[in-house]
């Protein structure tokens, strides 16, 4: 009895002539993700990828777990391969699903006949197979509305497949199909979620983080590196840039009015981020800002920050509530790490009364009182890069 994993493509099936590019990218991402688990043969037909394990001892549940996090997939399941012959389908169904069916109370059969040359029509398959299973498993009864087990038969071009699970995929587009962008990763709850959301739209993520020792600790940086590692499950490999930011923050503190501390800091962060983004061929910046969340995220403040940006800034969380963001953070398992209690550079020298509606001209005037350029250059030069590859 041969078991494989069926992967159904997501929205990329709607693509036209460049569909193949998306498919190839997805296949590449999947191969890379499951490489450590053993040898596989991946083939694609009818908007479905067939992952066939080459060895018998491969843990398919782990394959499903990992592939379930890859963007570009609508649904996936483990399935048993059958001959395109009804008696074989019945035999394999009984054998493959025996454990599940013998402990269940209710079931239904669902048939999908992609190969219209198959002699039986879908309702016929359902009825016949249903009857046979009822006979074999006296504990079962049919419930088409809310069955405990749904037995699915898919008759496709080379084989038929039987399975009893249909797991929702991560959706979106294959990572890398939309180009690369630089994520400003603070260590808080929002920025990893923002990165995940852009990766979902096919964006390959690089990350940038600012450290200000001794105001921030080594543990704070390790926490962000941990977040990066968690994101690789979804985003693939991530180049992580760590910018030494202490001197800039001290210069802001010494030379600028307190109410503009945060906004000027953010402008400097953006400036450094886009310089590094340019070097790394990133086409945009990504931040975890959400309108009105804090003083530096009011529309007026965002306008002042954006004034220094020469490339687009994506803010996928812009219209989300904190609770919605937390929900995603929990789902992608970054929440717990994000909430570890270490000071990050955003909270160093926070003004007591920040300007909620800053005017760009005032901000520029405040910032121009000191020449930050040499310090910016120094920070960019001393930025360290680390690569995080797909975890586990």
């Amino acid at each position, binding site marked *: 009895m041969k078991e494989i994993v069926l992967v159904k493509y997501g929205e990329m099936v709607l693509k036209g002539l460049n569909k193949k590019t998306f498919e190839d990218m997805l296949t590449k991402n999947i191969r890379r993700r499951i490489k450590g688990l053993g040898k596989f043969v991946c083939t694609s037909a009818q908007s479905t990828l067939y992952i066939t394990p080459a060895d018998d001892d491969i*843990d398919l549940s782990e394959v499903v777990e990992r592939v379930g996090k890859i963007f570009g997939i609508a649904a996936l399941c483990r399935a048993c391969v059958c001959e395109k012959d009804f008696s074989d389908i019945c035999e394999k169904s009984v054998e493959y699903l025996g*454990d599940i069916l013998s402990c269940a109370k209710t079931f239904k059969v669902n048939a999908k006949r992609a190969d219209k040359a198959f002699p039986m029509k879908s309702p016929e398959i359902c009825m016949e197979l249903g009857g046979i299973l009822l006979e074999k498993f006296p504990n079962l009864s049919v419930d088409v509305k809310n069955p405990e087990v749904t037995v699915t038969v898919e008759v496709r071009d080379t084989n038929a497949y039987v399975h009893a699970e249909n797991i929702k995929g991560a959706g979106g587009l294959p990572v890398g199909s939309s180009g690369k962008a630089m994520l400003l990763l603070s260590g808080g709850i929002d920025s990893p979620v923002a990165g995940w959301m852009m990766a979902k739209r096919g964006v390959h993520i690089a990350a940038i983080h600012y450290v200000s020792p001794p105001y921030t600790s080594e543990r704070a940086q390790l926490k962000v590196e941990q977040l990066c590692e968690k994101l690789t499950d979804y985003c693939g490999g991530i180049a992580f840039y760590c910018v030494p930011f202490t001197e800039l923050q001290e210069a802001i503190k010494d030379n600028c009015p307190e109410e503009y501390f945060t906004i000027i800091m953010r402008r400097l962060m953006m400036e450094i981020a886009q310089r590094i983004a340019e070097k790394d061929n990133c086409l945009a910046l990504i931040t975890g800002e959400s309108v009105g969340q804090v003083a530096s995220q009011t529309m007026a403040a965002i306008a002042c920050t954006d004034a220094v940006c020469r490339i687009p800034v994506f803010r996928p969380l812009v219209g989300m509530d904190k609770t919605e963001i937390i929900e995603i953070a929990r789902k992608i398992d970054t929440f717990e790490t994000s909430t570890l209690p270490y000071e990050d550079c955003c909270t160093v020298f926070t003004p007591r009364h920040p300007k909620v509606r800053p005017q760009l001209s005032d901000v520029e005037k405040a910032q121009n009182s000191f020449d930050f350029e040499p310090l910016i250059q120094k920070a960019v030069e001393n930025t360290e890069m680390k690569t995080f590859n797909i975890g586990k």
Partner: protein
Amino acid sequence: MSVYLDNAATTKPCSEAVSAALDAMTVNFGNPSSLHKAGLNAQLVMDRARKIIADSVGADSGTIYFTSGATESNNLALRGASQAYGRKKRKIVISAVEHASVEETACALEEKGFEIARVVPRADGRLYAVDFVNACDENTCLISMMMVNNETGYILPVKEVFSAVKRRFPNIITHCDCVQGYMKLPVKAASLNADLISLSGHKIHGVKGIGALYIKKGIRVVPIVTGGKQEKGVRSGTESVPLIAAFGAAVEKLSSSISERWDYVSKLKNHLLEKLSGINEIEVNSPEDGSPYIINISAAGKRSEIMLHFLESREIYVSSGSACSKGAQSGVLGSFGIREKSADSALRISLSAENTAEELDLLVDALTEGMKKIRS
């Protein structure tokens, strides 16, 4: 030269574990909760071990909580989960062949008002998923079963049971005591469908005094030890970094050779069984398809303890019943349908990949001699 055949009781720490522990006592001796570098370094040692152990069960680091051993892990799992989920649902299902740390804890919970259902092996000595499903109901908060029986090596159908139970009752918490299976069989939380998994360090060539509980993300366990909120509050008390480091080092060493060692130890088991078949009146109590690491036999008419001490005089160390109970009969053999007389003379020979066929030959010679010499 002594022959150590009591590896299910404990194993000899491997050199990697010893040097990892030594390093954590001499170099990285800080308190992992301290904010300074010495603390951070100790934390990093611990994080690394946690990651290795998490990887070995196919989970994230955040799911592994260190305890003082598998007995504490089992206590934490049963007491903690029943407290979190058992306010209204007052039933717990376990197998009838559990280790004392589960069985006795279940008894303690029984006294607190929980109903305990014990699923007994059928006449063929095996447990069936459908029996567990039938034992569960809407009122059940927790099911606990071991992966490999510590007395006979019988491999329980954990995956089948947990999958079937979860399908019917998705909210029942599943706990697996994997102590005798870990690093011998693949233990993967997701494929076992386990919410809680108990692990032990000293059964896998780590050091005594360290264990872990895997707690699936989102599953709540009420702590039984409270204090400084170490281990995310689940198990307070300064972590034993040396023992944790040793645990991690042992897992790191063993996790890549699970199937090779299984094959090797299977050969040892077959070799032993073949030789034993030459001795009259030796009965094998372990199932044929059980774990090769544990072989339970009965030397007809010779009481376990006497034979044990006879073998000891030849510097061969085996165990009667389960060592944890100091030779007291646990009743588990009876549950497997082994007659009382045979259980009285049961010996447990438990192997590690460090044993050799020659050592087993010495055992067989000594058993043969013992059968002749010991008056029954």
